[in-house]
């Protein structure tokens, strides 16, 4: 009797069921728990109040990232509340025996950058973190998703979560990408098609030639933004590229264990004929560099496009939302995106702060200078190791000579919990993942785009088609 063909998600889910309950939920084992300073203090407090221990500190890894300053770390932190949260993370980790990559460590960085970098992230694992962009780790064929503070405490105490199995969606990106079109453009184009709620209730598996051809870092960028399409998790089947990326990483298995792991990982890709509950196919060769015009990631158009008229939306709710977006963004319908001037540029965040992202931005910045209307242009590497690698390649000098600010790693202007902010009423060309109202500072106007496009905007002072600049 042959088993029914299963998807990647179904295999990983099945291998993590501790117990099935009558009400349709299952108790699921959690292999890895990444934690940071902002969403954990109350979870540790809960353990303390209930007199519970942290069940598997060895499967937990802590790193401060959300509100760390990105200027010289030897200087005092200007924000007392952030100082308290950082100190709490240290003392909580010490009390409960959790390993902490501290703020001064060379490996410190954004949780979703350091997990893969350290080989903490592996294919076929369940990975959670109190941050909604945890799906990033799905690029390795892991089932990774963001959780709330009560769930963090639940994982601390039991190393499990009570979950309901999700529906599956295949997002197939066919063909080959054009010149200067990147993983970020693919991610934005998918959200444009799916809408911000299109993936709600689903785990998305990204397939097709374009996804196969992407580097591991590019796959991380695509999975990172699964939540912006409403899906709690996005996944890509592991392949030889995945194994090559992980081999020799500090926390990856070695020797016979490595071989056994790879043998298991090879069984994970979806079986031929496995059925998905929904499928979306996108022709990758038709994707142009993308840029958002509104206050939701689905408000996205090709850089060659124009700001849409609210009337062009059939749905009344969408029309209202577009009106509000345009008022907040101070944009008139019909405006060419390429005519929109920006004052700020942010290259960073767990979406686009890895070495390939910095190389792509540096290639544009090289030999050029930021435009006179640019007030701040930050480059914030995703981790200390990315920073060091970039410096070894001379990318920092390219950026600083071009007038960019080269910073210490952290979340920075992605959510502006630290001093890195976009001033009210100003625009920012940003490689992060959310263009929500006030996300980059009260009154800040965000345009999401790729690292190369962000660098292009920096040197011209307006949203720019990087293909024209580099062609």
């Amino acid at each position: 009797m042959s088993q029914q063909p299963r998807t990647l998600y179904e295999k990983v889910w099945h291998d993590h069921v501790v117990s099935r309950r009558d009400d349709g939920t299952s108790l699921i084992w959690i292999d890895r728990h990444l934690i940071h300073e902002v969403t954990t203090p109350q979870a540790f407090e809960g353990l303390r109040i209930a007199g519970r221990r942290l069940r598997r500190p060895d499967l937990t890894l802590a790193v401060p990232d959300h509100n760390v300053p990105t200027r010289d770390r030897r200087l005092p932190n200007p924000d007392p509340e952030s100082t308290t949260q950082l100190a709490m993370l240290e003392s909580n980790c010490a009390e409960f025996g959790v390993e902490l990559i501290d703020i001064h460590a060379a490996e410190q960085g954004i949780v979703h950058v350091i997990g893969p970098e350290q080989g903490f992230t592996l294919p076929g694992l369940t990975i959670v973190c109190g941050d909604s962009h945890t799906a990033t780790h799905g690029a390795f064929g892991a089932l990774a998703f963001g959780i709330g503070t009560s769930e963090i405490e639940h994982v601390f105490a039991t190393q499990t979560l009570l979950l309901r199995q999700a529906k599956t969606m295949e997002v197939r990106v066919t063909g080959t990408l054009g010149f200067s079109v990147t993983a970020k453009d693919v991610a934005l184009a998918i959200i444009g098609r799916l809408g911000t709620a299109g993936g709600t209730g689903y785990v998305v598996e990204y397939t097709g030639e374009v996804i196969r051809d992407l580097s591991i870092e590019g796959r991380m960028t695509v999975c990172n933004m699964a939540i912006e399409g409403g899906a709690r998790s996005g996944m890509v089947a592991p392949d030889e590229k995945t194994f090559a990326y992980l081999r020799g990483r500090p926390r990856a298995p070695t020797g016979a264990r490595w071989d056994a792991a790879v043998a298991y990982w090879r069984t994970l890709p979806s079986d031929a004929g496995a059925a998905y509950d929904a499928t979306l196919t996108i022709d990758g060769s038709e994707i142009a560099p993308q840029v958002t015009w509104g206050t939701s990631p689905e408000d996205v158009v090709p850089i060659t496009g124009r700001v849409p008229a609210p009337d062009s939306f059939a749905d009344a709710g969408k029309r209202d939302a577009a009106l509000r977006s345009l008022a907040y963004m101070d944009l008139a319908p019909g405006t060419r995106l390429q005519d929109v001037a920006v004052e700020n540029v942010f290259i960073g965040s767990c979406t686009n702060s890895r070495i390939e992202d910095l190389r792509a931005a540096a290639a544009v910045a090289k030999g050029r200078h930021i435009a006179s209307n640019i007030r701040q242009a930050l480059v914030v590497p995703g981790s200390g190791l990315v920073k060091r690698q970039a410096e070894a390649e001379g990318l920092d000098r390219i950026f600083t000579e071009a007038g960019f600010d080269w910073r210490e790693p952290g979340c920075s202007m992605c959510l502006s919990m630290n001093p890195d902010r976009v001033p009210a009423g100003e625009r920012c060309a940003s490689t992060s993942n959310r263009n929500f109202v006030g996300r980059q500072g009260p009154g800040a106007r965000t345009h999401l785009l790729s690292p190369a496009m962000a660098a292009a905007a920096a040197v011209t002072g307006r949203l720019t088609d990087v293909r024209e600049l580099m062609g």
Partner: protein
Amino acid sequence: MQAFDTLTGIAVPFGAANVDTDAIIPARFLKTVTRTGLGRGAFAALRENPDNLFDSPRNAGAPILIAGDNFGCGSSREHAPWALADLGFRTVIAPSFADIFAGNAFKNGLLLVVLPQAQIDRLMAIAGEHEITVDLENQVVTTPFQDRFAFEIDPFRKACLLGGLDEIGLTTQMEGEIAAYEARLQRERPWAA
């Protein structure tokens, strides 16, 4: 978690509809490191008015809040139930609650009672002067005037609240299965364990 059985006490007749979690606890209070102490930020905007319901001496220590439709809508912050609990509330009675808020409230031992608007109106009228009783076991809200308002509640949530069992407490009861899984993982996928 504190077990919930029968609660008799003063009810704050708040009654407003579509109260979002930003109103319950504004974002500027989120940089905290404890669940406790958020009471000082609870309903901060409303409480700028010195004559507000929450700080009136008559309502001091009131464990019951009577609210309007769609209470707790908006951002998913778990700080909202934490702030209500810190103000001393153990139950909120309203015609309806927002979904995510309801989940968060339950996870933090806050009982939500849904009653039709007419019964809410009656409770609002009584609340200022007399105590109200919420009996979870028998699923009924009573007043000193022989009012008996029955309410529905998910049996799982009811059992958890009555037993003072939080989800973690329940999961801990499955320790045998968890340990068995852990041992199997160690054998079958040692690199993951």
